[in-house]
């Protein structure tokens, strides 16, 4: 009797379990299949450009000579965006999570989230039509006073449509991503650790340094990497803001180009080998993003022993 009751466990719950585990497995496989499909497409389509004789590639000096200036341009724009956005985002997130009165915090968090809802083409238009014009006097000043630094070498662009402007627009776009993720992490800091710091006689800032920031470190890194992903791949804003050209060290002259904007601007009129070249550029962008994410994971895992997880 007991044997039968123990073995007969076919109820609705059992079927639900099976359906759920099947659905979860399918979803997991689907992600892998999509990723693999995209990678396969990129590689297959890129092969003609990678194997073509150098003279036939745009610029006439082969794929590598074509791609590396825009890789550098992409990285410059993304780094500018992160250098500006990360400290501001962490500051805003800390203000919302630990300093602002509760009502103000809720409102402010909402406003920051709204920033993420603005379409990128609007940011592009704003950057091109407004910010570039307003910021060009500042570029002139930089060229006159800091011109000895290669990155601020004059003459500054008269239109202000430079890689620095593009970077600033990108920083506004990645700001809400980094802010809202950091804020969520900051709010999850165990009360226990905050109280431990306060009970030792820590000021609020010291409490944040001792308990909140160490706890949130992996989360902040993930948030920054997500922001970096957005900055690397952002197309429309850069295409509208940047008056592109050859690779230049100066951030305040027109010039430079990013991979995403290069693809977007040239794809509609491309054919034959040109399409293949652009797809190959896309493959390079894909690899960069993948590498960035892997490095981020490695940084996070390096300090696992000291993380709050154990």
């Amino acid at each position, binding site marked *: 009797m007991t044997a039968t009751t123990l073995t007969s466990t076919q109820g609705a719950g059992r079927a639900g379990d099976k359906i759920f585990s099947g659905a979860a497995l399918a979803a997991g496989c689907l992600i892998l299949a999509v990723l693999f499909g995209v990678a396969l497409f990129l590689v297959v389509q890129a092969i003609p450009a990678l194997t073509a004789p150098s003279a036939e590639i745009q610029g006439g000096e082969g794929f590598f000579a074509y791609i590396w200036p825009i890789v550098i341009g992409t990285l410059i724009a993304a780094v500018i965006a992160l250098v500006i956005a990360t400290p501001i985002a962490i500051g805003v997130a800390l203000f919302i999570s630990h300093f602002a009165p509760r009502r103000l915090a809720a409102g402010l968090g909402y406003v920051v989230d709204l920033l993420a809802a603005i379409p990128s083409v609007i940011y592009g238009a704003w950057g091109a039509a407004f910010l570039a014009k307003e910021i060009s006097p500042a570029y002139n000043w930089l060229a006159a006073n800091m011109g000895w630094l290669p990155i601020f070498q004059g003459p500054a662009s008269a239109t202000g449509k430079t890689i620095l402007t593009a970077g600033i627009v990108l920083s506004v776009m990645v700001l809400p991503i980094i802010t809202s993720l950091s804020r969520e992490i900051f709010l999850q800091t165990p009360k*226990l*650790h905050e*109280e431990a710091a306060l009970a*030792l*006689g*820590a*000021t609020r800032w010291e409490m944040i340094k001792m308990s909140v920031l160490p706890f949130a470190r992996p989360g902040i890194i993930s948030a920054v990497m997500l922001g970096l992903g957005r900055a690397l791949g952002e197309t429309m804003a850069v295409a509208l803001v940047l008056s592109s050209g050859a690779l230049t060290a100066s951030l305040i002259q027109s010039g430079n180009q990013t991979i995403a904007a290069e693809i977007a601007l040239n794809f509609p009129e491309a054919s034959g080998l040109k399409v293949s070249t652009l797809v190959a550029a896309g493959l390079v962008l894909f690899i960069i993003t993948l590498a960035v994410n892997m490095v981020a994971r490695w940084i996070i895992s390096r300090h696992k022993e000291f993380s709050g997880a*154990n």
Partner: protein
Amino acid sequence: MSKRIDVKDLNVYYGDFLAVEDVTINIEAKSVTAFIGPSGCGKSTFLRTLNRMHEVIPGARVEGEVMLDGDNLYGPGVDPVTVRSQIGMVFQRPNPFPTMSIRDNVLAGVKLNNKKISKGEADVLVERSLKGANLWNEVKDRLEKPGSGLSGGQQQRLCIARAIAVEPQVILMDEPCSALDPISTLAIEDLINELKDQYTVVIVTHNMQQAARVSDRTAFFNIAGTGKPGKLIEVGDTHTIFSNPTQKATEDYVSGRFG
């Protein structure tokens, strides 16, 4: 290195709700005072008002006086940060900083407020504090390992080491053994016995045997019913409270008739 605490007519509120009503109690220096009472009677809340840690809870506020050797903790211009550096606290669940090594955990409070300390001094202080918390022999070979790798009882002693490293006047303990096994509990109780030679110790406990074992004086808190404020019913020598209390409620509680 120890001061007495005199509390007079203290009320604690959460918003408009009166949580603890009209507590007047004198806590002797270099002694162990235990707070006992049923759950929700306000003893932990009251303990937190002794180093202004209740201010972390939104809406919590107090009326009345808490004098640390004559200085009112709630006087005008008194900085809660200074109060807490003089009155340390150990919590219910061990809470070493997970991202810090054992050594850095001990030094955490000392390095606050931009104080600089040489490596030699730091070594001496770490050893003295860990010895003071009866933990030195267990961790001396792994001071650079994370504090979160220790057992629960060791973590709690690490927290005590961290608290005594800043040389406070008073150490408050909020049910320090409630998350620990009996062996670890015994280690902490032995430690409390040693701590009272140098510090004023106040301990909240659910465990009446523990109060009887470790404390010199015991205060019994009670609550008339849900929604009513907690009150201090009686305070006296531990021996008297457990053998010959003046209040009926105290006698019922310590004899196990309720709570």
